C-alpha cells in the first residue's frame, strides 16, 4: 500500500517545473493526477510520464485565471476519477520582462500576475472544496515563495501575489479545519525550472553561470531541484503532517535564515566562515 493509493490530486501549472515534478512524485506514490495547464504539448508529455509510472494522468487544458476553466478542471477530474482529495495550487508566472516598480508597471501586468498567481488559488479552492468535503477531508497545498516573506527590487505584483497566498492559506486553514481540510503553503527559494532558466537568459553571460551564481546566494551553495520541492509537498499532503495547518514551510537552501548583510553560502566544509 503506497501513501496516496486511490487518491486523486489536482496540480495547477503541472506541465513544467515544480508542478510536473510533484505530479510525478504523487503518481509514483499511487495517486491519479489531474494536470491543469495552459500548455497542451508539454502537459501531454507529463501525462505520458505519469502513465508510464502505472498511475493515471489527465491533462485538462485551462487558463486557471478564468473561473469557467477552473470549474471545468474540477468537473472533469470528478467525471474521470470520481473524486478529489488533494489540490496543489502551484501555477505561477514571473516573466523575464515583468520587472518594474509600481510607477512603471503596466496595469495589465498587475492584473495578469494577480489573476494567475493568486485569484486562481481562490478559484481552484472554491470549486475543489465541495469535492474534497465529500471525501471527509483532504489537503490543499499552495506554492507561495520566499518573495512572499522578503523581497527584491522590481517585483510588486509578484510579491503581492505571493504574500496574498500566505494570508489566503491561513484563512482557508481556519475556515475549513473543522471539516478536516488542512491548508498549507510552501516557500521555495531559487529552483532550477523553466521559469528560472527564462530569467537567467535575460542576464548577461551564460545562463548556467548565472544560475550557479544565484545558487551561491543560498547557504547550501546551490539552487534547488524541483524534486526537492515535490518531496516537501508530498510530506505536507501525507498523514505524517496531520497536525500541521495554516503554516508555510521554506524550501530555500537556507536563504531565509540569512541576514540581509550576510554573504551567501555560509561556510566551507571544514566549518570555517567563508567570505
Amino acid at each position, binding site marked *: 500500500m503506497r501513501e496516496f493509493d486511490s487518491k486523486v490530486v489536482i496540480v495547477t501549472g503541472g506541465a513544467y517545473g515544480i508542478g510536473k515534478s510533484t505530479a510525478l512524485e504523487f503518481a509514483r506514490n499511487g495517486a491519479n493526477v489531474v494536470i491543469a495547464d495552459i500548455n497542451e504539448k508539454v502537459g501531454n508529455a507529463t501525462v505520458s510520464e505519469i502513465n508510464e509510472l502505472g498511475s493515471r494522468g489527465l491533462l485538462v487544458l485551462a487558463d486557471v485565471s478564468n473561473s469557467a476553466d477552473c470549474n471545468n478542471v474540477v468537473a472533469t477530474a470528478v467525471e474521470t476519477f470520481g473524486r478529489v482529495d488533494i489540490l496543489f495550487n502551484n501555477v505561477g508566472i514571473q516573466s523575464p520582462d515583468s520587472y518594474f516598480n509600481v510607477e512603471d508597471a503596466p496595469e495589465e501586468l498587475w492584473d495578469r500576475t494577480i489573476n494567475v498567481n493568486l485569484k486562481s488559488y481562490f478559484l481552484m479552492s472554491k470549486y475543489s472544496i465541495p469535492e474534497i468535503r465529500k471525501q471527509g477531508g483532504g489537503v490543499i497545498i499552495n506554492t507561495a515563495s520566499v518573495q512572499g516573506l522578503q523581497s527584491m527590487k522590481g517585483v510588486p505584483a509578484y510579491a503581492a501575489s505571493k504574500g496574498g497566498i500566505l494570508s489566503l492559506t*491561513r484563512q482557508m*486553514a*481556519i475556515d475549513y*479545519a*473543522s471539516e478536516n481540510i*488542512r491548508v498549507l503553503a510552501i516557500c521555495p*527559494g531559487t529552483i532550477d525550472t523553466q521559469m528560472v532558466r527564462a530569467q537567467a537568459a535575460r542576464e548577461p553571460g551564460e545562463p548556467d553561470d548565472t544560475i550557479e551564481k544565484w545558487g551561491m546566494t543560498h*547557504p*547550501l*551553495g*546551490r539552487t*534547488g*531541484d524541483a524534486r*526537492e*520541492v515535490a*518531496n*516537501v509537498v508530498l*510530506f505536507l499532503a501525507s498523514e*505524517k*503532517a*496531520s*497536525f*500541521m*495547518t*495554516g*503554516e508555510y*514551510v*521554506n*524550501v*530555500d*537552501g*537556507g536563504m*531565509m*535564515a*540569512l541576514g540581509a548583510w*550576510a554573504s551567501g*553560502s*555560509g*561556510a566551507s*566544509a*571544514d*566549518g570555517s*566562515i567563508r567570505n
Partner: protein
Amino acid sequence: MLLEGKVALITGSASGIGRATAKLFAAQGAKIVVADINKPGGENTVSDIIDGGGEALFVETDLAKMEDVKSMVDTAMTSFGRLDVIHSNAAAYDMGTATEITEDQWDRTISTCLKATWMIAHHAVPLMLTSGGGTFVITGSDHAIRGYPGYAAYQAAKGGLLAMTRSLAADCAPTIRVNIILPGAVETEIWGETTQEERDRIAEMCILKRNGRPEDIANVALFLASDMSSYMTGAHIVVDGGLTSVVQLPETE
C-alpha cells in the same frame, strides 16, 4: 527506510517527543543513542527499541554540564563509529515572570534549553563534518514566535534556539543541514499535573481542535533528518494544529 545505516543521537529521549522520535528513527533503520538525565526512562526507550529489532544505547547525561555533553558525544562515536543525525530535544524549565524567577532558575532553564544545543554542536559538528556531514534537528517551541505570560526564561531560551538555528545553518552549510521544529501544545510528561479541563481548553484553541501527540512531532523530525528535506536548512516548521495561525478573538456569533 529513510535512515538506513545512520547513527542518530536524540536528547531528552526518555520521555515525550524525544522518546517517540527515537522509536520512529529506529524503525526507519537508524542506530540510536538515547541521551537523558532520567535513567529508568532512558533504559525503557532502549529496551523498547531492542524489542522492536533495532539497535540502541543509553547514555546518562546531564545536558546542563559541558563534561557530560562531551562524554555523550564521545560515547556515541566510540560505540557506533559515526554520527549522522542529531536531534537536540531535551528541555526542563522553571516558570515565572522576569521579576519572579531567581538567577538560579534563569541559569538552569537557559542551560538545558539553549546552552545544551550549543554544547552539542560544539562537540559534534567537527566530528560530523569529518564523517561527511548529516542533519541537525532542534526542538524549539511556539514560544519562539509568540508570547506567553509567565515564561520569561523559557521564552528567551526558545527564541535563542530559533536564531541560533539560522546561524548554525549558515556556518555548517552545505555539509550539515540545521532545522528547527516549533511545536505548539503537545501532550507529554512535561505537562505534569495539567487538568483535563485545561487540556481541553487548549485543544479548543487549536484550529484542528486537538492537542498534539509526540508522534506528530516525531514525524516532522524524521522528515527534517532525512533526505526528504534536502533543500531545507536554517528553516523552522511550526507543528501546532494551527494554534498560532489564528488570533484568539471572542466569538462574534
